[in-house]
């Protein structure tokens, strides 16, 4: 079985997983309105890390927060990070893309290459395996965990460090603005008045290993699946095809009644949330509570799948279904069990669901103590 050994989140809401969970549970959000930032002509709402506290001559902010996140995840473990049996998988969509700006001179331009960025990180830790960078749009964070499961199952590695990161810049924000995908206010996942997403900065790390037996408090990554809509490169399938197929694959023979919740993508764009409601109904999981964490962090892109998996594990540990901040009235055509309040649960498994540009969708089934 593939087991979570340790994790960490670095975000505007804290620099440990525990700080982040406590902040989210109490309803805190890091979403703020920014006007004139990075010379952008339009204001935007985002969840941004204080850049000054991570300033570093050697490492870009993306590299710096991944290094910090991995370092913190390693605390208290006896993992020999330099070992050839340890593999790094980095999940990011845009990495150091800000280096393409002609006015950026602080770091070598070659670090815009994702593989070169990843090598800064493995070099820092003295690990000589070639790092794998998963760059699968918004589903990268779940794909990276699925890759980790496969590398561990194959027996080639003892530990896989999965670290997801993205840091916002004029490049990304202007792109989403050009798509008219950004909400002018704090986002409202699954709500009748939702009108777009917010973006966010974060790094999040999960360390996985393989074990033959697990105890009841250990988190097991049970099944993951990636499926394509085969429909459109920038809009989700109207019938939720890829998400439905990914959900069906990870659910297997398990029952809706075993799931504490589905932690959805829930970006608060009109199309994404509607599509997810269709996919969840098609697979027969309408009775399962659904939440979205975008109202606390915005969409953290390459970090999202890792960050949201960590918070969901902590929520189940705490017998809690985290509230969907920003939600008020259900505004999707298929019924979903969404709430803007924390709810209690005694169940021990959840599904993390994501979808992204390129028509890709990913789902991951996690169970505490493994599946029964």
């Amino acid at each position: 079985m593939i087991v979570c050994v340790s994790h960490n989140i670095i975000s505007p809401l804290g620099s440990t997983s525990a700080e982040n969970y406590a902040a989210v549970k109490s309803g805190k959000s890091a979403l703020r309105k920014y006007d004139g930032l990075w010379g952008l002509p339009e204001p935007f709402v985002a969840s941004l890390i204080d850049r000054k506290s991570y300033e570093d001559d050697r490492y870009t902010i993306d590299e710096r927060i991944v290094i910090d996140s991995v370092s913190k995840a390693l605390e208290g473990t006896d993992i020999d990070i330099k070992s050839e049996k340890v593999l790094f998988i980095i999940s990011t969509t845009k990495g150091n893309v800000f280096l393409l700006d002609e006015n950026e001179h602080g770091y070598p331009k070659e670090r815009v290459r994702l593989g070169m960025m990843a090598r800064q990180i493995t070099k820092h830790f003295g690990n000589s395996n070639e790092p794998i960078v998963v760059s699968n749009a918004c589903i990268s964070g779940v794909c990276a965990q699925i890759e980790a499961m496969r590398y561990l199952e194959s027996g080639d590695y003892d530990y896989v460090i999965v670290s997801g990161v993205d840091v916002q810049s004029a490049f990304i924000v202007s792109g989403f603005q050009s798509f008219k995908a950004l909400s002018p206010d704090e986002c409202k996942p699954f709500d009748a008045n939702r009108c777009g997403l917010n973006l966010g900065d974060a790094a999040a790390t999960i360390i996985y290993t393989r074990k033959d037996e697990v105890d009841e408090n250990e988190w097991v990554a049970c099944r993951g699946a990636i499926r394509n809509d085969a429909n459109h490169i920038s809009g989700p399938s109207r019938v939720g095809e890829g998400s439905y197929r990914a959900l069906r694959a990870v659910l297997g023979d398990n029952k809706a009644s075993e799931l504490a919740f589905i932690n959805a993508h829930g970006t608060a764009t009109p199309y994404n949330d509607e599509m997810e409601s269709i996919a969840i109904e098609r697979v027969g999981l309408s009775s399962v509570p659904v939440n979205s964490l975008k109202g606390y962090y915005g969409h953290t892109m390459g970090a999202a799948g890792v960050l949201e998996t960590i918070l969901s594990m902590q929520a189940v540990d705490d017998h809690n279904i985290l509230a969907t901040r920003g939600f008020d009235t259900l505004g999707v055509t298929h019924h979903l069990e969404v709430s803007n309040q924390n709810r209690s649960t005694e169940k021990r498994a959840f599904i993390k669901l994501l979808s992204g540009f390129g028509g890709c969708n990913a789902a991951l089934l996690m169970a505490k103590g493994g599946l029964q």
Partner: protein
Amino acid sequence: MIKHQVNILPNEVKVDGKALKVKSCGSTMLTDLYREYVGDYPKFFKMDTLSKVGFIASELLLNAEGDRNFEPREDRAVIFFNRNASLQADTHYQSTIQNPENFFPSPAAFVYTLPNIVTGEIAIRNKYFGETSFMVIDDFDEKIIRKNLENAFQDPVTKSIIGGWVDCSDEEHFEADIFLMEND
């Protein structure tokens, strides 16, 4: 097991090791290949260079496989690796926002600033509902790619993969080394 293989360089195209006659090179060659071997998929002209290279390579690969019926299927994955991710599209998009006096970000340019779009283009063309994935390593490494693709068969639905290396640094410099792999 590798069933078919396609290699593309800016001045050379090989299908299963056999060179195709090409009269042109670079971006013109891609358009010529489209006209000669595809012809019925005008979305090609909207694609960024990475997608064009991956799309043309996949068309040649699937023509070599034969019996193209375009029936929807979930058992075939599309998994690519490269070095430069979506650098050509990124550089193009950056040029649309670099100058504050001439700021015109375009959604059509932005959507291609993700390397996995090429895998989506191939899934759409062929109605593949299976896994699509894109990964980046800083140097071509056949062992890493092969191992990764073999691992992908751990998904019990996946029976074959269009996989390999598709890279592009600008509109005239690109490389594809892709193959059709079946689970043995």
